[in-house]
């Protein structure tokens, strides 16, 4: 084929990784006792598309491997094979192996042949071992779906009869029947009859439409897949009937329905007799179900590092965007009309127009931001597998409950959230949930529950990791912290502070290290990651009842609610979330520590004062005496302080721009933004400021 296939590779990889995810979650959902046909179908379809795709792109190692999986799955689907835990585990292993293969191909690296061969062997053992036991239905199957090579017909006549009638728009999709015939002719001897009855009168003829249909007889030892490959691209744009010449009598018929209806889908689920099921039919059903599958798994495959630059967006979102741009254009033309012949009595019109413009701009901004939003299921999606694997390893019984998977979060947040969550989940599984016996002894159900819940609250997204395990023991935590020298023996800690000890570097209460967790390097990293995203992490726990870790994160990293402040003639933005209150302080509230450091008392709490004009060297500052200006009480990384500034200006949403892109990181500044007048204002980094003032 003369088309450059490489351009489709990225799409293929994305789809394949999606497919793998679908297979994985499908396999995990399989209920041993009562197998849901639709579930197996989903897994099968995913495997089938990967096989088809990899075949098309010439990744034969992948397609060969998937073929074995597919055969196994097919037998399960037809009810010819029991779905066993071993089979599922073998399949899960193969999914992993496939993932590695695809990643290797994507990164243009060598595939680990040894591990592939090993997995393939396990698969084949699983396949053949069982096959011996279940030969009953097998024999009745004249042609199974996955019989790649049609067995040579006894009559000596090998070949296919293909009735190919393209839809009129076939040529517009860029497909050329002539090219396909040329390829067919490469497979075997070809006899083609053309049917031109559909051709309209010259007067009505649109030369870009295709009105011809063909009857093709092709002889030779050709597999169904080879024919299928050729018609792969036009499948949806034609009526295609492929019949084996030997089976023309009507034994095994392969038909393709161009517009598969729900009835076919439903019908197929009930059909267990493999005789009537044909490859094309499966394909047709596959296409019918694809949109659905896409909807649930629209997230971009995370595992592909290269793919992280692209994003898959719901068409509805784009449509909204287009609508909005349309309205914007209308408003703009209205405004320019007003501007062209402006009279004072049209002032109202102008004002209206401007108000509309403002609204549209805001809506536009929102929907553009919305494009970057991904459902959190992007991260949650892989946890069932993690829990499955870990609980087996730890010999615990654990159920994972996911709530609010459709909560949408900014792409960047989603990507950076993954690792911390994995860590928290591992902790819950390893340290939180007790062994079944232990649970039973304390009167809890043997199966522990870990809940992952995501929801929106006040412009933040909250993600909770809850377990009903043993909870944190405050005394143990305290003892451990003292032992490690993290706190003094006589330090008084609140419950909250005690729990927060686990976020300190080098803290681990696990008695022995496992390879799951317990090295004490994790939690501080988790907290740092969350904080670098502008979020915070809270922990609550009740001994014997369980632990809840809640992560609060901003919805997006690109826009921030800010409070603009003035120091002299300079403007700064303080993230609104970090402001607790603003106060005018009086002389009697001020205390000096060691003659230099200034603190002030606010409701029985002594807070350090950070003079903005001093640490930022603003020479034009109006207020130099603390009583003259304002003190904004801010909180960052658990530390509070008062920022001494000249004035508060106003609240506004600001678009965060990177300072580092062209410049570098500046201490005490997290970024910059462009104000309404086009000038640049710096966004303050509160924890950084506190650090700076301590120097």
């Amino acid at each position: 084929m003369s088309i450059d296939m490489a351009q489709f590779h990225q799409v293929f990889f994305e789809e394949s990784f999606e497919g793998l995810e679908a297979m994985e979650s499908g396999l995990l959902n399989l209920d041993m006792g009562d197998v849901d046909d639709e579930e197996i179908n989903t897994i099968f379809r995913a495997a089938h598309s990967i096989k088809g795709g990899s075949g098309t792109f010439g990744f034969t190692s992948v397609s060969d491997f998937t073929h074995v999986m597919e055969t196994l799955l097919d037998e399960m689907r037809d009810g010819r094979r029991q779905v066993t835990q071993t089979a599922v585990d073998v399949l899960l292993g193969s999914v992993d192996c496939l993932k590695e293969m695809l990643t290797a191909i994507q990164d243009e690296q060598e595939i680990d042949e040894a591990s592939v061969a090993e997995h393939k062997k396990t698969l084949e053992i699983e396949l053949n071992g069982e096959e011996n036991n279940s030969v009953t239905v097998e024999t009745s199957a004249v042609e199974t779906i996955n019989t790649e090579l049609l067995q040579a017909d006894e009559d000596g006549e090998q070949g296919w009869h293909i009735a190919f009638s393209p839809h009129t728009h076939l040529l517009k999709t860029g497909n050329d029947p002539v090219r396909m015939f040329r390829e067919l002719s490469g497979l075997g001897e070809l006899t083609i009859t053309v049917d031109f009855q559909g051709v309209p009168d010259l007067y009505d003829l649109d030369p870009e439409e295709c009105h011809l249909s063909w009857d093709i007889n092709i002889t030779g030892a050709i597999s169904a897949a080879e024919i299928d490959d050729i018609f792969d691209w036009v499948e949806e744009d034609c009526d295609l009937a492929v019949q084996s010449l030997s089976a023309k009598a009507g034994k095994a018929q392969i038909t393709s329905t161009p517009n598969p209806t729900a009835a076919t889908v439903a019908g197929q689920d009930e059909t267990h007799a493999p005789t009537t099921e044909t490859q094309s039919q499966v394909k047709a059903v596959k296409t019918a179900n694809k949109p659905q599958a896409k909807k649930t798994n629209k997230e971009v495959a995370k595992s592909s590092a290269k793919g992280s630059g692209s994003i898959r967006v719901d068409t509805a979102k784009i449509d909204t965007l287009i609508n909005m741009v349309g309205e914007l254009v209308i408003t703009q033309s209205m405004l320019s009309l007003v501007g062209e012949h402006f009279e004072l009595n049209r002032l109202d019109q102008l004002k209206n127009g401007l108000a509309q413009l403002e609204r549209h701009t805001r809506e536009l901004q929102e929907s553009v931001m919305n494009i970057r939003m991904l459902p959190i299921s992007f991260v949650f999606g892989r946890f069932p597998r993690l829990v499955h694997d870990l609980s087996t390893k730890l010999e615990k019984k654990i159920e994972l409950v996911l709530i609010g998977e459709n909560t949408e979060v900014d792409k960047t947040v989603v990507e950076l959230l993954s690792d911390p969550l994995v860590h928290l989940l591992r902790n819950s599984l390893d340290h939180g949930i007790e062994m079944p016996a232990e649970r039973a002894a304390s009167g809890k159900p043997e199966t522990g529950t870990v809940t992952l819940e995501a929801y929106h609250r006040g412009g933040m997204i909250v993600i909770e990791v809850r377990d009903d395990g043993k909870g944190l023991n405050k005394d143990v935590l305290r003892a451990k912290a003292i032992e490690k020298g993290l706190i003094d023996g006589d330090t008084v800690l609140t419950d909250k502070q005690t729990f927060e000890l686990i976020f300190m570097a080098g803290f681990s209460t696990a008695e022995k290290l496992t390879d799951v967790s317990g090295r004490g390097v994790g939690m501080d990293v988790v907290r740092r990651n969350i904080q670098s995203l502008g979020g915070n992490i809270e922990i609550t726990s009740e001994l014997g009842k369980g632990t809840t870790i809640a992560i609060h994160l901003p919805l997006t990293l690109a826009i921030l609610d800010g409070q603009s402040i003035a120091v002299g003639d300079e403007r700064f933005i303080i993230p609104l979330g970090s402001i607790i209150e603003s106060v005018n302080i009086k002389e009697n509230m001020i205390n000096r520590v060691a003659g230099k450091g200034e603190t002030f008392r606010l409701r029985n709490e002594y807070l350090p004062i950070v003079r903005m004009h001093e640490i930022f060297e603003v020479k034009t500052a109006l207020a130099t005496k603390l009583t003259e200006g304002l003190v904004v009480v801010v909180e960052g990384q658990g530390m509070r302080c008062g920022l001494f500034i000249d004035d508060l200006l106003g609240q506004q949403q600001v678009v965060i721009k990177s300072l580092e892109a062209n410049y570098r990181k500046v201490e005490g500044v997290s970024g910059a933004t462009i104000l309404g007048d086009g000038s640049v204002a710096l966004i303050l980094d509160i924890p950084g400021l506190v650090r700076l003032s301590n120097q």
Partner: protein
Amino acid sequence: MAELVENNGTELTEEMKLANRVQFLSFTLGDEEYGVDILRVQEIRSWEPVSRIPNVPDYEKGVVNLRGAIVPIIDLRERFGLGHLAYTPLTVVVVLQTQAEQGHARIMGVVVDSVSDVIDVEEKTIQSAPNFGTKVSTEFINGLASVNERMVMLLDVNKLLKLDGLDNEDES
């Protein structure tokens, strides 16, 4: 026919000449004349007030909004220790960009006294920068060119703009 051949011949030599020539944008700082590779120049703007960045050297004037990008502005006079000159509406900012490394080019504006000319310099005639020891910072100077009996110091834009990154590393 003969004419054609001749034409082709002259064109060829012209091209060969061009291949060895580099164009520089020259500008002045006090009495000195400097040049930067013209391909590194993005645009030339007049001075406009900047937003100051706290706790940085004096020569780093601050940042401006350049069509949505935050771009730092550096005073080359002060950078080279030539003293400060009050900014007037005639003060010029040359916006330079580095060669893209990993697909990302850094942009930075440098304040100069005035932009003078675009000069053609034959690559062969560029002298390497003399070494003045540590007294004069010659690290950004790529070479010296002589144009109409005047000496033009050719600056290495990448080094000039990269300096911040190095500073950054030292600080952190």
